[in-house]
């Protein structure tokens, strides 16, 4: 991976930069490089494999999932295909579950199911064992999804956990937890919200956020970002950072 560093003299190389950068080399950055180089030298994996997986990791994100949902909402025939064969339908929206090895990744495999919500059925996804997630379609999982707090509690107290995300469902709605503990990966197809009649696919995509496709939020007009309350206090930045400039 290459990225530039500006050190030492103030003003050197800085006036050409388009965006601010963290202008110090942390031990974390150094550690990541060091362990990776050693792993390659010990034959644990090849540099070529790492390059391929890095490019793949940089290519994925939740926009693909939003596209699938918006298309399913506007094209009933596509929705039927997506419910019948998730991997094949993903290809129609430009996602190939076989990447980057030809047989998928060791965590994502090639089994993908779309879970359709109805007014009386709400799905929410978890992996209690290790936080498996439909990365080809949603990108990297959010930190909260990987915590033991979420994974242990969602199966036992789903409504309490959903309430912490601000989602409260009537008791007569069936809340169905999907624990993806084997090779199948899942994504929620939420109910299309009222107030979106005649919207374009692009407009619909904007309100289908990652949290809606995991099942901890419902899409609605005007809601275009996932926002979570701060879970725990962080230490404020120490004043010694002033020296780094």
């Amino acid at each position, binding site marked *: 991976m290459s990225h530039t560093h500006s050190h030492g003299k103030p003003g050197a190389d800085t006036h050409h930069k388009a965006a601010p950068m963290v202008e110090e080399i942390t031990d974390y950055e150094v550690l990541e490089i060091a362990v990776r180089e050693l792993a390659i030298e010990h034959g644990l994996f090849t540099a070529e494999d790492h390059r391929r997986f890095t490019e793949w990791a940089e290519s994925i994100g939740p926009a693909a999932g939003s596209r699938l949902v918006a298309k399913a909402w506007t094209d009933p025939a596509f929705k039927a295909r997506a419910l019948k064969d998730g991997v094949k339908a993903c290809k129609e929206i430009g996602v190939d579950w*076989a990447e980057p090895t*030809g*047989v*998928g990744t*060791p965590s994502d*495999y*090639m*089994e993908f*199911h779309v879970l359709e919500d109805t007014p009386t059925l709400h799905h929410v996804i978890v992996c*209690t*064992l290790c936080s498996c997630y439909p990365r080809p379609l949603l990108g990297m999982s959010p930190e909260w999804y990987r915590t033991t707090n979420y994974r242990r509690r969602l*199966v*036992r107290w*789903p*409504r309490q956990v959903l309430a912490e995300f601000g989602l409260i469902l009537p*008791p*007569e*709605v*069936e*809340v*169905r*937890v*999907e*624990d*993806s*503990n*084997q*090779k*199948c990966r899942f994504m929620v197809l939420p109910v299309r919200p009222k107030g979106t009649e005649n919207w374009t696919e692009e407009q619909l995509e904007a309100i289908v956020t990652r949290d809606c496709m995991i099942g901890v939020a419902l899409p609605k007009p005007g809601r275009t970002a996932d926002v979570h309350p701060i879970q725990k206090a962080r230490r404020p930045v120490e004043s010694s950072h002033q020296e780094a400039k």
Partner: protein
Amino acid sequence: MRRLGPGMKKSKTGHSPEKAAATGALFKVGDQVRVRDMPYMFYTRSQMYTRGVAGTIAALTYKDLIPEEEAFNFDGRIEQYYIVRFRQKDLWPGYPFDNDTLQTECPHRWLEPAKN
């Protein structure tokens, strides 16, 4: 985690090629099944909370190899995987919402028919 048995090649889908049927007749969607209470050492991907609980087959997913560490004889047997649906009331004592459910994926060898 999942390792190929001797002489087996990875297929395009990442699973082994379909061969002879698995251990016994396959379950069908709607069948009542119970998660067997097998020794923990044989479960690499199981959740304790479903042990001994009865549920319904919601879907058949794919066939895959039994992991070496869980196959009683290492002959590369392939088995069917299922999505099994449970009522939350059956999983957790005192669960207060009657309609809520939970689904998880189980290989055939974890399941036995549930008597009503």
